[in-house]
């Protein structure tokens, strides 16, 4: 349906792979106001389509690719797109966010979102050209079975041959892991990936190897002059901020290894410790000095946090913090070059580095404890390249490792040290030294995810330094951060743009008086956060700490003050939860393995474990959910979900 708002293309299309037909999906301006874009559009569509009886690997499970209204408008860090579905890994509603150019070209093709239902009868790849869909055989074209980079290169060559010209386009593909239904297979787009929660396996199940998209639609903005003027400011804010202007461009997320080590937050030996004795061999500084060639960024981003490293004389994408930590400290591997090799191999095979590394760490401990004789052991990482290939091809122990740590622990025992939540392995942040992050991991809609969990580590030691062991105020701050990040992602922007939420002085002067007072005061301000969470609409203005809302208004023409923005995020977050509730999710699933909740990391300090039950109770209250973890009817009404 055409729209009054700029930034949107005004079209959502439903594609049925089984019958190879398309139809317009009804999407109104009221929907745009309520569910602004990206993952929240997808949450609403999933809520319309899923009843609670669908299986992840079924024709009824739609793969929804959606964009935000800011993508393509020139607003900084807006080159993101979202993929949502019922996750093969968790069995619940999930979303995975990805950079690159696919989102931009999807909008140039005239589409805000595509809903992909059904299943192709044969291995297929899909070409989208200005809203026209063409199916090609992935077997005849020699795509099926190829790794991620050769697949994308082959697809590009085929398109150039067909078009007789080098047109610009976006693309996304799965690798062998997705084809072989590895439950944590990801989807790759250029060098970026929608890695988590196994959406690549769903694409593989649908026999869809890849999608290319191009078009020549103009993406309009509501006030071009205001938009450009604000963009200039926004770009400068990002470039002058110590995190987005210095640390991230210089070291990427890998720069967090050292501060995490310092604060005992670096998951080590399958989360049994928080410090790795050889961390200096694998930290971001070493990576930057010895291996990094250049930093790269997604389209429209001035931060450019991505690493390009030298591996065997070839430039390849470098590891993110999560991968770096989990493939080094967590499996006791101090060989950084091997980390780069494993990371590259995982990217090429198309699987989630976090879940794969987490599963391997569990398997190493299970082997050590005599639960599962699999030949893997801590400190012996040389053979892992082959293990990873076996996972992608589902050979030998790889066939079992492809199931992830939750299912394996159900099979072999060792659930206490299967470091996952809702079936999704945790990221490299050890939550016993950042208990708010622990709460986030446990309650997150998509499982053990640091971002969907609210990323409280940023205030618990990686930016601000509020007491990492206290549960005070953590639930309320978690809710606010989750909602804010939900809205930023839905608008089409990268979550790293939210670093500017923290005024520079707090980062540059961590021991300064302002920072010290704030660190001391924040645990006692739960009530303030609670009040804002409860009545966000009272904030009817733009705040300097969140330049995103003004950018949103300038680009779309839609009213979006800070309060409206938080409310949209809350709506999206609650909607995801509400759909998962239909699949039986509740407080019983918002949990962490016993290692993190019952065993102190430091035996001499009983507070170094996650007091999950206390925080969960407050969290449900703050969210307006029942103590069983289900959104109350009054909450759903307040959010205009029902």
């Amino acid at each position: 349906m055409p729209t009054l708002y700029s930034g949107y293309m005004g079209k959502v299309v439903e594609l049925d792979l089984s019958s190879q037909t398309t139809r317009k999906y009804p999407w109104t301006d009221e929907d745009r106001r309520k569910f602004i874009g990206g993952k929240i559009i997808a949450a609403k569509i999933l809520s319309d389509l899923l009843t609670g009886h669908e299986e992840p690997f079924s024709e009824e499970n739609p793969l929804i690719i959606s964009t935000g209204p800011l993508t393509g408008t020139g607003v900084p860090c807006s080159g993101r797109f979202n993929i949502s579905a019922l996750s093969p890994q968790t069995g619940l509603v999930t979303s995975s966010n990805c950079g690159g150019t696919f989102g931009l070209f999807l909008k140039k093709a005239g589409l805000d979102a595509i809903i992909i239902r059904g299943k192709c009868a044969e291995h297929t790849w899909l070409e989208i050209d200005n809203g026209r869909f063409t199916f090609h055989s992935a077997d005849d074209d020699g795509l099926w079975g190829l790794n991620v980079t050769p697949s994308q290169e082959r697809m590009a060559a085929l398109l150039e041959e067909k078009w007789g010209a080098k047109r610009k386009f976006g693309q996304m593909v799965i690798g062998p892991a997705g084809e072989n239904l590895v439950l944590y297979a990801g989807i790759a787009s250029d060098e970026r990936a929608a890695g988590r929660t196994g959406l690549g396996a769903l694409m593989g199940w649908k026999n869809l190897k890849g999608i290319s998209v191009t078009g020549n639609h103009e993406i309009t903005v509501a006030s071009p002059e205001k938009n450009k003027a604000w963009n200039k400011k926004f770009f400068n804010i990002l470039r002058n901020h110590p995190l987005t202007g210095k640390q991230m461009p210089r070291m990427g997320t890998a720069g967090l290894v050292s501060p995490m080590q310092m604060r005992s937050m670096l998951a080590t030996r399958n989360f049994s410790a928080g410090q790795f004795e050889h961390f200096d061999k694998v930290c971001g500084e070493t990576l930057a000095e010895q291996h990094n060639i250049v930093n790269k960024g997604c389209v429209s981003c001035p931060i450019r946090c991505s690493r390009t490293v030298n591996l065997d004389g070839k430039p390849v994408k470098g590891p993110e913090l999560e991968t770096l930590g989990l493939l080094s400290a967590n499996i006791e591997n101090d060989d950084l070059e091997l980390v780069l090799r494993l990371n590259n191999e995982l990217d090429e095979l198309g699987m989630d580095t976090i879940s794969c590394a987490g599963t391997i760490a569990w398997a190493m401990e299970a082997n050590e404890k005599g639960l599962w004789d699999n030949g893997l052991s801590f400190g012996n990482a040389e053979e892992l390249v082959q293990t990873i290939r076996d996972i992608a091809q589902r050979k030998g122990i790889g066939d079992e490792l492809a199931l992830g740590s939750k299912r394996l622990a159900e099979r072999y025992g060792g659930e206490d040290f299967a470091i996952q939540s809702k079936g999704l392995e945790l990221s490299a942040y050890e939550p016993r030294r950042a208990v708010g992050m622990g709460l986030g991991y446990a309650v997150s809609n998509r499982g053990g995810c640091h971002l969907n969990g609210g990323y409280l580590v940023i205030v618990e030691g990686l930016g601000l330094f509020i007491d990492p062991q206290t549960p005070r105020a953590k639930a309320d701050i978690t809710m606010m951060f989750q909602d804010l990040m939900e809205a930023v992602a839905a608008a089409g922007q990268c979550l790293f743009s939210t670093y500017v939420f923290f005024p520079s002085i707090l980062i540059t002067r961590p021991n300064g008086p302002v920072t010290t007072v704030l660190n001391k005061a924040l645990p006692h301000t739960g009530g303030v956060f609670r009040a804002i969470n409860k009545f966000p609409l009272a904030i009817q203005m733009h705040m300097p700490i969140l330049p995103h809302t003004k950018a949103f208004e300038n680009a779309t023409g839609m009213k979006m003050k800070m309060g409206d923005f938080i409310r949209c995020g809350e709506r999206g977050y609650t909607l995801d939860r509400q759909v998962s509730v239909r699949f039986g999710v509740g407080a019983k699933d918002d949990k962490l393995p016993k290692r993190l909740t019952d065993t102190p990391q430091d035996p001499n300090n009983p507070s170094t474990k996650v007091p999950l039950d206390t925080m969960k109770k407050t969290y449900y209250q703050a969210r307006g959910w029942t103590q069983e973890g289900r959104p109350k009817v009054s909450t759903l009404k307040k959010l205009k979900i029902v």
Partner: protein
Amino acid sequence: MAAYSITDKCIGCGTCANSCPVGAIRGQRKALHSIDADICVRCGLCGRLCPKGAILDELGNRTTRIPKKSWAHPVFEETCAGCSLCVVSCPKNCIRIGDPAYQGDTHMRAILSHPADCIGCGLCVKACPIDAVHLEKAASEAKEPAQT
């Protein structure tokens, strides 16, 4: 989509079809050519090459031929943030993000890597979110550097 179009002044010389960077122009030799409105990216190259002024721009205005030596090329300013929106918009693939000046340099700007291929369409200027690029005619009309 608004796109360029061809009037019946077209003599079918094929100049536009041979040079269209996205392959949007079709037609038999010595017959009226046409532009596929679904493919045209509005770079305007056809208009600047057509010897007969047979091309209309997306607003329906008649275009005129401009000799190649008078085409303007993008100049990137110090404020460029290397966001690569121009790189993605360039139909001739002649812009890229420059190399770091030293190990650890993080402030890379866009550069015109293939000046000989540049058609001076200005799509990079249109794509830039912060006005960090503008078009300039070469000061001297010396021969352009060869493609690298």
